């Protein structure tokens, strides 16, 4: 006779670098229901942003997440620039694309490594993380820091990238691409990887829309939406076609991210080739007033900032909707019906960032 058991998956678990809990109701080895619990490390960033000066908030929002810190700052600055009527110089817009795509590359490399580790492929994990070091070195060279690079500011970017560093970046990307070709080949074609990921954690397109999925999770279900299509920063000139897969399973989510890495490599190269020779920032004048929404595409999906300003130095409200927060509900839909041994792989397939979720 089938036996029902409720087991806690997390908040501490080997595949989870950060705490989240899923209460899994199992019928023998099959998951019947999953109930997520978050809030273990909530930091109250939205409240803190109401108490700080709007210029100080740039440094605050960068610390929401260490993996995509630049993109948080970009989203916030872009919203303020809209409220203050600032036009960012084109070189700054291009530099924003370069650093954003480098962040996407390193985030996807980080995830591909963790994902390989989740199904016990440690050597593949090491391959991806070794390649990722090249990207971290690029950050150190171009911005002076490896994790929180603090390159974005209201009105543009805080620093330029010299011609020599741009050249070195291109050379490093060549080496990275060669290593990536080998590692991604294994991730896409290895028998054991496919055995653990194909047909697991399926999210159909209609459910992805109704449950509000974001980023690679949404696009792996066949929905062609990518915030870069809105043309923020220099994406209006460096056109981006969303990377779409249709199977909606763990394998498709990995494939989307692998193809996005190639897209990012191409975008960085095109941005460097077309980098205009202008100023890198304009000086903000006045104070922000009004309400606006700013959207960008993080490695994990669409990031939305809602800013409400009142003409003073402090914002009335800063709302931050991160992609993992959006992908928790789709995850709850993916798990029922799977075997308990597949739960870690399916959870990791959404690329959960709890730092972002627990703003």
């Amino acid at each position, binding site marked *: 006779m089938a036996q029902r058991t409720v087991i806690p998956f997390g908040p501490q678990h080997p595949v989870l670098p950060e705490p989240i809990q899923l209460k899994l109701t199992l019928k023998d080895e099959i998951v019947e229901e999953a109930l997520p619990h978050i809030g273990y490390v909530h930091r109250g960033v939205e409240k803190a942003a109401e108490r700080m000066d709007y210029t100080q908030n740039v440094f605050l929002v960068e610390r929401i997440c260490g993996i995509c810190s630049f993109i948080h700052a970009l989203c916030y600055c872009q919203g303020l620039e809209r409220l203050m009527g600032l036009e960012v110089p084109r070189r700054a817009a291009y530099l924003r694309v370069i650093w954003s795509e480098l962040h996407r590359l390193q985030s996807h490399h980080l995830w591909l490594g963790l994902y390989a580790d989740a199904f016990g492929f440690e050597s593949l994990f090491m391959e991806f993380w070794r390649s990722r070091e090249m990207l971290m070195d690029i950050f150190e060279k171009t911005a002076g820091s490896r994790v929180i690079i603090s390159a974005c500011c209201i009105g543009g970017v805080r620093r330029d990238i010299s011609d020599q560093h741009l050249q070195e970046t291109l050379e490093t990307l060549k080496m990275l691409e060669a290593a990536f070709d080998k590692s991604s080949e294994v991730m896409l074609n290895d028998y054991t990887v496919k055995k653990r990921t194909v047909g697991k954690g399926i999210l159909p397109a209609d459910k992805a829309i109704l449950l509000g*999925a974001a980023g690679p999770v949404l696009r792996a279900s066949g929905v062609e939406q990518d915030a870069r299509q809105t043309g923020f920063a220099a994406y209006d000139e460096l056109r981006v076609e969303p990377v779409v897969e249709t199977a909606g399973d763990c394998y498709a989510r990995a494939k989307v991210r692998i193809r996005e890495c190639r897209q990012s490599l191409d975008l960085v190269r095109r941005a460097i080739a077309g980098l205009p020779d202008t100023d890198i920032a304009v000086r903000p004048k006045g104070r922000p007033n*009004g309400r606006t929404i700013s959207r960008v595409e993080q490695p994990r999906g669409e990031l939305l900032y809602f800013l409400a300003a009142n*003409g003073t130095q402090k914002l009335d409200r800063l709302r931050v909707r991160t992609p993992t927060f959006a992908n928790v509900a789709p995850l709850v839909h993916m798990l029922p019906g799977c075997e308990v041994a597949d739960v870690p792989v399916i959870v990791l397939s959404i690329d959960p960032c709890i730092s972002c979720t627990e703003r």
Partner: protein
Amino acid sequence: MTEVTRPPAAAMCDVEPTRPVAVSDLCAAAEAMATRNLRFVTATCLDMGATFDIYYHFADGVKLDNLLVTIPRDAELPSITASYLGAFLVENEMKELFGINVVDIGIDYNGRLFMTELDQAHPMAKVQSCAAPTVEGE
């Protein structure tokens, strides 16, 4: 010091198309969005003192379509989880952090998504309803 006067929400809104809806029409408006196959993005709550402004953001392709509901502080807000189950987290967040009385949420954490019984009630609200409870013995 110059007093800052705020224009009405809809007038100062630079948010992409926003349609104000009455609270009684919210569920029907959300259902209409679901019928149009719009993706639920999130909701944003603004504490305006006597009222709350609540935006619901939906993605129509790459564009956003927004609904704006304004409710008095103590009014009930119906959940849209019947149409968009994915809204359960943000509705629990609004209920817990702002103190909005969201009713009929698909998965209701009853105020225990982020907070514990020892935390200050509704920390994001600009008008605090009660102080943080103290731990016995402190």
